[in-house]
């Protein structure tokens, strides 16, 4: 009888191959991220060596005279994302609460599926809808009202032009961010221990008071992370935004005027890029976009992990 504990060659070889293949695949995934960052910087080198860090606060963008700078697009990215989050943040939380606490059982499944369907719609389709349906509808019905009712705010000054402006882009971004943040938040709200919820209700709190006093404080870190992850999506969205944002330069507060974001400018100008310097500048924009995206995503993930650690007491 073969000595117990001696494994066959096939077994050891197979295990070795398994560990090698799977570990290699995992390393490969990490390698992609590193290689991606390196390759992007490499491809942008002509622009980086010409403009240096000043690219980030230069306002130029002139393909004819070969002057390029990123400030208008950095502003556009943050400005549109800020307003998109302003809309999407509270709405995501409200929808997540609806799906986890307020709706009757059978409604939750249906509405949850519908919200996830919204997330699945390709961005080019949402952009198409934005250009031909949302933009004109906003210009005709919403913008005049906003201009007259809130015109004292700098955001709603400047006459409504056509539908391709920052406001349409903000709405489109909000529509794309809400499903993501809402489903993460819903998972969080569902994870609150039932005893805490039941205890609060037993003490006589109304449903809303229980949400405000138990669920929201309990999940606070995670909800923040969910919204930041939505920000990551908003920052990186190129196709839907470029179709509706108007693609113009300019740093101004009016939402009725057009503008551009980092991702949107890259998508719009790549195919018509005339010179190597323009292509390198577009890739430089991508490097900035990558940096922003990495900071936002890493930040959100680290918040989630610390929040998980806190919640589970270090397990």
């Amino acid at each position, binding site marked *: 009888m073969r000595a117990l504990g001696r494994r066959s060659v096939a077994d050891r070889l197979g295990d070795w191959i398994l560990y090698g293949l799977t570990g290699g695949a995992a390393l490969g995934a990490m390698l992609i991220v590193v290689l991606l960052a390196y390759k992007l910087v490499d491809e942008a080198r002509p622009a980086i060596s010409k403009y240096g860090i000043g690219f980030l606060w230069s306002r130029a963008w002139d393909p004819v005279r070969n002057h390029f700078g990123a400030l208008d697009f950095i502003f556009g990215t943050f400005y549109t994302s800020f307003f998109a989050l302003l809309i999407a943040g509270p709405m995501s939380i409200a929808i997540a609460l609806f799906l986890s606490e307020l709706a009757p059982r059978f409604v939750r499944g249906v509405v949850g599926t519908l919200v996830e369907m919204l997330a699945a719609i390709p961005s080019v389709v949402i952009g198409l809808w934005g250009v031909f349906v949302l933009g004109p509808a906003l210009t005709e019905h919403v913008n005049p009202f906003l201009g007259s009712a809130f015109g004292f705010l700098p955001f709603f000054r400047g006459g409504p032009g056509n539908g391709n402006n920052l406001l349409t882009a903000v709405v489109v971004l909000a529509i794309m961010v809400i499903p993501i943040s809402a489903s993460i938040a819903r998972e969080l709200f569902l994870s609150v221990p039932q005893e805490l919820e039941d205890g609060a209700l037993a003490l006589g709190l109304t449903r809303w008071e229980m949400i405000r006093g138990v669920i929201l404080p309990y999940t606070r870190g995670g909800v923040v992370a969910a919204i930041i992850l939505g920000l990551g999506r908003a920052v990186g969205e190129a196709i839907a935004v470029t179709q509706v944002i108007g693609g113009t330069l300019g740093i101004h507060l009016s939402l009725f005027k057009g503008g551009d974001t980092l*991702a949107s400018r890259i998508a719009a100008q790549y195919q018509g890029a005339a010179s190597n310097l323009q292509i390198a500048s577009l890739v430089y924009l991508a490097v900035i976009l*990558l940096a922003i995206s990495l900071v936002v995503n890493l930040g959100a993930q680290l918040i989630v992990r610390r929040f998980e650690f806190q919640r589970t007491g270090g397990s």
Partner: protein
Amino acid sequence: MSSPAVSALLAPDARLRRRKLVNHMMEGIGTLAALAAISALVLVVYAVASRGYSALDRNFFTKVPATFGESGGGIANSIAGSIVIVLCATAIALPFGVLVAIYLGELAPKRVSRVFSLVLDVLNGLPSIVIGIFIFALFVVGHGQSALKASFALSIIMLPLVARATQEVLALVPKELREGSLALGVSRWRSVLGVILPTSFGGILTGATLAVARAAGETAPLLFTCSVTVTQTSWNPHEALQSIPLTIFEFLESPDPADHARAWAAALVLMTFVLVLSVLAKAALARSRRKLSR
């Protein structure tokens, strides 16, 4: 059996009435928010369906685009191109993703697994246009575009989705199966191949379906890797093929209103495909989750 005194005690006072009012208001706001999200979905689906439906006919699926200004013509070349690109991307991402998931879920020590999990989550959050530029810089510069390079870009986008879904189903495999196999002296690799993977097969398939639904709709990576316009229908992955999302994007820019109608029709095809796949996959995932965790 409540006496008048008890009823008086239980009657709501002004403060309780106010709290109940606030509660009702908040529930109303939650319902409104959900309704707003649903109406956005309904508006988009309705607009695409109503505007795209009229241009759909047999020619649309079997013919290539007509020359500028002429009527007729369809998106046959785009459909073929998209099929090739997504299939190749799945062929790359599926084994890759399953291998990573096996490593993270079964073989890696806890701390290592956490780090790699973070890497996967970061990869998932990268803008797709950045991934497109990466493949452009890596493979396209100096060599030209092709469907295969587009598949590489899409496979990077699909990888975290496949890996995460696979990890989820792997974790659902009952501990008894795993431990029983190892207790019988079966080597690690035989356990994985013979016991764990077959149990998770359905879940892996649905994860792949979700990833396909995501990749089919991506446009930005295609811009940099496979956007040269070709009008012939080809199935060769080494050429630059036309694809549905890019076709929609390009029809938009055209001044011809007939092209806009074709854009809506192509959008209807793409949206239907993606939505049906997503809903089916999520339903299957939910069902297998319920089955395995009972």
